[in-house]
């Protein structure tokens, strides 16, 4: 390797090896469930068996008698306000007099062994009086529906209207459909877990796997009745998140037990418990209508979208917001009428999951787009290209799309990628639907191709003050310049740590960049969600580096008595190009700068018309799926899942492709197998035996085409990457299965019996 290559390694545009990569592959990475303290006790949670019930009484006497038990806590033991929640403080930390879903936390036990704690929890006697439950969200707003929250007038969490153009539009061609999307789970592999360590002075340190340390901190503080300086959070190793760690899980519980026992408390959910320990993706019922010209140009679109929020609001408001503002897809539509609603029910709470609001809607608008194409006799790719947004267009909330919107290019790009070879004469059965299960040797197998395109907002929307904080320190260590970057932005596996290093190397010309543990010792980094961290925390780190550089050059100017200086690599260079000093020479004192960075503001939308600049940035992607379906048995093998996505600029090309592959797999999972089955408020499959996620045999090889149309408004031109692939892959797979089977398939996941009957 030449010296120049060494110097440039690990900068923006490279794909340096991530520090957690090898550890994760070899099983050595320390996840939050691996946390340990020699003096710790174990906390467990007793949960409600009922979807809706009044708690008449709780008797903990027997549990406390179990040897080894150090605490049993209920709502009565909550010192502060017993209320948490991301949008509304509607969620008790421990159920108080009423439980609203199966699995709601009711009591906590701490004991010297997890098994002891579990057995003691079974001895807590809770006297429940079952209440009528509302478990069909389509009935939740009926006048006679039981109220999930007695203090509310009805079961509505949020309703959103979007109105634009002709209020009574007509069109020569009208197509319509109803669609239903089942409840998906994030299915992260690292269970909810963490360690709370009391500081001996009434405060607590919490080490936890999460997506947003500061929003956790404020909620934990409220329940504990403590100020933020006494509740310090540090990010532990995160085993996947996908939105499921935006809400609190064991955070408050471990802290309550720690403060009560005076001992470090570890909590780690079992696999089945994890299915009750976090929110899921909202199931949705969607009714869509498109009006178009005879050539298939959209004239109007109507949508009615209902999201089941479950027992507590969580992120339902934002999900409704996305469904409403983005739910018609990346198309130019003159007249629009959208109603999106999220309701309370006694089903499991639903909240954030990768691509929320858009994932559900895309199944409907893409199925309907195919229907329109067929009706007017236009190719399914061309109809999307024809109606696709372009830069400068207005979207359905009247916002100008002021950077690249390459819908036509994306969908044509995936169309033009090479197709997989036709099925072999005598194929290996592992390449067929059913795989090694040997259900076909080619009988009944039909190939289908499907397309889908999407767009998704990046960052927090509708006027939210969305910012991140970065502290960058530059100092000389053993004669070498070393940067330390400190943000509270959660690394959940997406690669932010690596990216922060890349930015510092690029901006400051240093090779060595230390990433400070993520904690609440620095200002908020905002949420690791909404595909926003590269943009927002990346922007904050860049700004902090620039501030450091300015200070360094000011110092150099003072000591060298000249002002024509710039930083090039680790050299201070004059205008002439002459190297006038090494960076370390001006680092006798470290330089440290902290910057709070904001993207362009968004604004709330008009409550009557839904018009407004709701979102900061849009990201676009398209997929083409090729499937082989055994139409007689209803089994599906995805043969190819190819995609094109505009990422603005790929700061770490390998990480970008990794996000796209993972997101695509997750979207495919929803199309074909991933569903939490809930009957009368009870979860029927809380385990990986029956909640199926794609295996490596289910996931085909992917061709990934990355477009880089820099967004002039974003740092480095980046565009969020993580969510779009999850949105467009599922609808493309569903479309391919429809193409192979000729069935309407208006529900996902598509089960074998939907194909065979």
């Amino acid at each position, binding site marked *: 390797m030449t010296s120049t290559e060494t110097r440039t390694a690990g900068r923006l545009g490279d794909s340096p090896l991530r520090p957690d990569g090898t550890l994760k592959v070899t099983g050595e990475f320390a996840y939050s469930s691996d946390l340990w303290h020699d003096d710790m006790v174990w906390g467990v949670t007793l949960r409600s068996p009922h979807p809706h019930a009044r708690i008449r009484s709780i008797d903990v006497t027997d549990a406390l008698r179990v040897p080894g038990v150090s605490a049993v806590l209920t709502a009565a033991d909550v010192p502060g306000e017993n209320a948490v929640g991301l949008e509304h403080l509607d969620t008790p930390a421990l159920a108080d007099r009423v439980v609203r879903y199966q699995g709601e936390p009711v009591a906590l036990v701490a004991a010297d062994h997890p098994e002891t704690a*579990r057995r003691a929890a079974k001895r807590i006697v809770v006297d429940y009086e079952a209440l009528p439950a509302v478990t069909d969200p389509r009935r939740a707003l009926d006048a006679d529906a039981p109220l999930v929250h007695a203090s509310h007038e009805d079961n509505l969490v949020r309703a959103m209207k979007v109105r634009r153009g002709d209020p009574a539009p007509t069109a020569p061609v009208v197509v319509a459909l109803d669609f239903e999307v089942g409840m998906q789970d994030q299915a992260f592999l690292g269970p909810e877990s963490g360690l709370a360590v009391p500081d001996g002075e009434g405060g607590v340190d919490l080490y936890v796997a999460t997506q947003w340390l500061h929003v956790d901190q404020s909620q934990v503080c409220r329940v504990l009745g403590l100020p933020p300086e006494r509740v310090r959070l540090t990010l532990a190793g995160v085993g996947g998140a996908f939105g499921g760690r935006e809400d609190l899980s064991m955070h408050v519980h471990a802290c309550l037990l720690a403060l009560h026992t005076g001992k470090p408390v570890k909590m780690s959910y*079992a696999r*089945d418990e994890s299915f009750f320990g976090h929110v899921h993706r909202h199931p949705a019922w969607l009714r869509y209508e498109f009006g178009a010209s005879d050539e298939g140009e959209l004239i109007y679109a109507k949508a009615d979208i209902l999201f089941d929020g479950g027992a507590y609001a969580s992120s339902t408001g934002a999900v409704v917001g996305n469904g409403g503002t983005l739910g018609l897809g990346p198309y130019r539509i003159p007249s629009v009428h959208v109603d999106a609603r999220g309701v309370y029910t006694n089903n499991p709470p639903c909240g954030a999951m990768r691509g929320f609001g858009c994932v559900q809607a895309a199944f409907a608008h893409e199925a309907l787009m195919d229907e329109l194409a067929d009706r007017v006799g236009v190719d399914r790719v061309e109809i999307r290209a024809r109606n696709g947004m372009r830069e400068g267009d207005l979207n359905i909330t009247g916002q100008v799309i002021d950077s690249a919107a390459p819908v036509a290019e994306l969908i044509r790009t995936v169309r033009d990628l090479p197709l997989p070879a036709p099925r072999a004469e005598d194929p290996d059965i*592992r390449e067929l*639907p*059913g*795989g*090694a*299960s*040997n*259900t*076909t*040797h080619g*009988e*009944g197998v039909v190939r289908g191709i499907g397309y889908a395109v999407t767009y998704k907002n990046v960052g927090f929307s509708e006027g939210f003050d969305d910012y991140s904080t970065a502290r960058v320190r530059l100092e000389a260590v053993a004669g070498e310049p070393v940067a330390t970057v400190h943000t509270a932005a959660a690394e959940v596996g997406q690669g932010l740590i690596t990216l922060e290093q890349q930015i510092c190397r690029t901006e400051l010309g240093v090779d060595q960049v230390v990433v400070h543990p993520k904690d609440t010792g620095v200002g908020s980094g905002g949420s690791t969600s909404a595909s926003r961290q590269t943009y927002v925390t990346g922007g904050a780190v860049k700004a902090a580096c620039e501030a450091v550089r300015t200070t360094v050059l000011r110092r150099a100017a003072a000591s060298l008595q000249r002002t024509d200086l710039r930083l090039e690599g680790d050299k201070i260079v004059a205008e002439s190009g002459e190297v006038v000093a090494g960076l370390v020479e001006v680092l006798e004192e470290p330089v440290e700068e902290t910057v709070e960075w904001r993207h362009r503001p968004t604004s709330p939308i008009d409550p009557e018309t839904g018009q407004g600049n709701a979102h900061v940035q849009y990201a676009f992607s398209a997929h083409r799926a090729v499937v082989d379906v055994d139409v*007689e*048995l*209803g*089994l599906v*093998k995805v043969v190819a899942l190819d995609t094109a996505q505009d990422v603005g600029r790929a700061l770490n090309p390998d990480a970008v492709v990794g996000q796209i592959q993972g997101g695509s797999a997750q979207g495919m999972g929803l199309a*074909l*197998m991933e569903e939490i*089955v809930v009957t009368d408020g009870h979860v*029927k*499959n809380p385990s990986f*035996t*029956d909640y*199926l996620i*794609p*295996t*490596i*045999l*289910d996931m085909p090889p992917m061709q990934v085409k990355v477009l880089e149309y820099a967004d002039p408004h974003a740092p480095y031109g980046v565009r969020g990457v993580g969510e779009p692939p999850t949105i467009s892959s599922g609808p493309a797979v569903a479309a391919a299965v429809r193409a192979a089977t000729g069935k309407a398939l208006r529900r996902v996941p598509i*089960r*074998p*019996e939907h194909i*065979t*009957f």
Partner: protein
Amino acid sequence: MDFLAPTSWAEALETKAAHPDALPVAGGTDVMVELNFDHRRPAALLDLNRVPDLQEWSRTDDGRIRLGAGVTYSRVIAELGGTLPGLAMAARTVGSPQIRNRGTVGGNLGAASPAGDSHPALLAAFAEVEIASLRGTRVVPVAEFFTGVKRSVLEPDELIAAVRTTPPAGPQQFCKIGTRNAMVIAVSAFGFALHPDRREVGTGIGSAAPTPRPAPAAAAFLAGELEAAGLWESRGPLPENLATDFGRRVRDAAAPIDDVRGSAAYRLHALSVMARRAATWAWDSYRDENRSAA
């Protein structure tokens, strides 16, 4: 919980007689899951991994195969793929490589789940279970082994010693439906064997009744039709409607339920398709054998 670890078969039988409530552990892929979920709290565990006899398979003097209860799926696939093709096909569909490296055929029988994948293959092969205790050894046809959901004829002092089966005289097939392409519990499964030496057909239904079960009426029907049409000798093509009719009769032998993995109606439909296809594939191989022999 006591942990009993006999190192010989005789000691294992003595231990089981002395501790009838001890739960045997072979690969542990069922047992450990149940312990983890606290579904079971046995007084003792009886570890069979140190009993050498159980880990072996052999050919007996009468030419039959005796498969020790502790032989893993991976070994069935690697060592017996050609000898016990139906069982090996079933073994390939079990779990993941890790599970196949630990899980055993004896454990599958011990668990007696209606969804156990080796069962349809063993049923179709007319295999027998060799059961032993200090009281002696008895041999039970697999078709009589299961008595209910996760229940079998095993008495508290008994252990499964081996599976006995005759190397097949004709082709075998195994098919399993799952909603993904690997690592999945059967929604329903079907085992099929042609026994040209006996002019018989073997069948096994999985995940579509309280126990794994054969479809004797369907099997007799098909064997009879083959006989009547002289097809065993002529090795002519299997008439399509015969295969379809056989599939329907297999379906009629099942008694599935609706559950989160699939509906009863789908299970029945899938069984009829699998039975038709499996019979056709096996028959085609039978015809090919003749051609290659000629």
